[in-house]
């Protein structure tokens, strides 16, 4: 029992990111409402960002802002007193990835608005059932049903 707690507490950031990722993934797959799927996608992507940021952590490191950086050219070039910074590269990568995630959410919401205008509902099963009704010429079964009704 103590072994498991040790394993979890030593790498808790990875456990958190995996839990969040699976929650988001489950929401994307299993929820029927389209907005909930988009929320699930957001949780999924946020978990990945957390993973990257947790990679950047250095024990005893401080925020990666160059001290005395804006006071003048000489001081910035010269030696800053030995400060341990966290790794800034994953932070920069995640800035870009956040922009990508925001754009994806924006496109998804615009699509949801169009779907609502067209079908009047945001539930997946209602939309699918409505679409199957609308395609008589491409389905033999639907065409026969139509001819049978006439």
């Amino acid at each position, binding site marked *: 029992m103590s072994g498991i707690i040790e394993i979890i507490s030593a790498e808790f950031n990875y456990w958190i990111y995996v839990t969040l990722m699976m929650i988001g993934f489950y929401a*994307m797959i299993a929820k029927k409402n389209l907005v909930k799927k988009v929320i699930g996608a957001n949780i999924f*992507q946020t978990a990945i960002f957390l993973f990257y940021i947790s*990679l950047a952590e250095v024990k005893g490191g401080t925020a990666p802002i160059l001290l005395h950086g804006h006071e003048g050219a000489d001081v910035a070039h010269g030696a800053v007193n030995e400060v341990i910074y966290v790794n800034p590269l994953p932070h920069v990568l995640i800035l870009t990835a956040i922009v*990508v995630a925001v754009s994806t959410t924006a496109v998804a919401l615009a699509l*949801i608005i169009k*779907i609502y205008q067209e079908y009047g509902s945001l539930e997946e099963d209602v939309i699918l059932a409505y*679409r199957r009704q609308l395609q008589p*010429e*491409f389905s033999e079964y639907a065409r026969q049903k139509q001819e049978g009704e006439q």
Partner: protein
Amino acid sequence: MIGFDLITDHLPVLTVVIPLIAGFLTPMIGWIDRRLCWYWVMLTMFAVLLMTSSNLYTVITSGTIHYHLGGWTPPIGIEYVIDLLNGFVCLIIAFIGLMVGIYSIESIKKELPNKIIPFYSIFLLLITGLMGMTITGDIFNFYVFLEISSLTAYALIAMGDRGDGVVASFNYLIMGTVAASFILLGIGYLYAVTGSLNIADMQGLLPSIYDNKVVLAALAFFMVGFSIKVGLFPLHAWLPDAYTHAPSAASALIAGLMTKVGAYAMIRFMFSVFTPEFVIDITRMAEILTWAAALAIIVGSVLAIAQSDIKRMLAYSSISQIGYILLGVGLANVIGMQGGLLHILNHSLMKCALFLVAGAIFYKTGIRNLHQFQGLGKKMPVTTTVFLIAGLSMIGVPGTVGFTSKWYLALGSINAGQWIFVIVILISSLLNIVYFWRVFDNIWFGHPHEVEHIKRDEAPLSMLIPMVILAVLCIFFGLFAYYPLHYVLEPLSNALLGIGVLP
């Protein structure tokens, strides 16, 4: 000349930047006059085609091009690398983009009359994304361009059929987000163990840590992510709806390019980031890929037979053709790899031509159900001849381009000792004949009493020229396959598999 030197030294980055600027300036140009958008797009695509052909020529004659963005040397900075694989795929992207650009004006005027300007802006941004994805030598930059191309593809598909297009696009968005996020996760894992984001650098750093589980997990994430992007069965569910309900020009562009660039990405990651010995010997990922590809080939062809909508039939046929490409890649001997890479070229030409024909038929008659195609042979003779040539090429008739790649794939399977793949290729060619012949039958041998009083009513010239060019190229590369094979694909396959070195 100073100006000329300026351009030729910086061609790799200009290939990506020029469509980007052009895409963002298109709304301003469209304000002045709508038709100017089309000339602007054609001008840009023509410039991009010139630049990519020059790139490929330089690579064939003088070797791999390295371009350091911002003057920072790798692995600190981002690097754009053009070697034979990149140059080859970039040329295909530029060419298909130009063809669809020429075709699109008439088709878009009819299908999306209010949205000409947004369509062309997003078109150019899609070309930017695909070009960037292909040229870059840095894996995070690759992810950024992957998302650019995916988002623009979602927007293009959503412009299609009322209601259906938007649902198909949403479906593709959810699956595409999962794929891109898995790829991002794989990139994170690789960064965590190597500390570098540069492809060439990683090739040197990874072999010493092959037994690390993180590298295995990264490979797994990449393969799943790329399989979704490429449409490999059983992760293909977004593909039929997306191809069917997009506008005709967008269907041709997306069907001709996006899966191919996804296949290029798979090849690049499998063989340049994870070196060939990892993929073939240690994890046997290549073998798994061949079996999945064989399944995709059969299932795609079988499902295509059941369709009545011609675009849906072509979409399922795409699923089976992707199987061919990945079969060639996974076989991992030189001949099989050449077949797979040649099939990238073939499939773009053939599938683009087929989707352009379907769009032309829809433009003239409004029909998409192939059971109603009677009499089209008399009404639109040039269009249906293009369909015939492209269809024969898909089946694999000798003399057309499809035959060459299937022959190489069969030879590669025999070399690898897997006779079952030869049988798979033969069966799927027979299945291809089944569903293509049904369409030919309807077009030319329709009910006699309806055919007599049909007048000739061909598609407009701007739609005919790209289709005819593509059909002619199908036959040209079928008869003269020596040129791409000898100059580009053979050294490339040797280099990818680690047998020879790139020039």
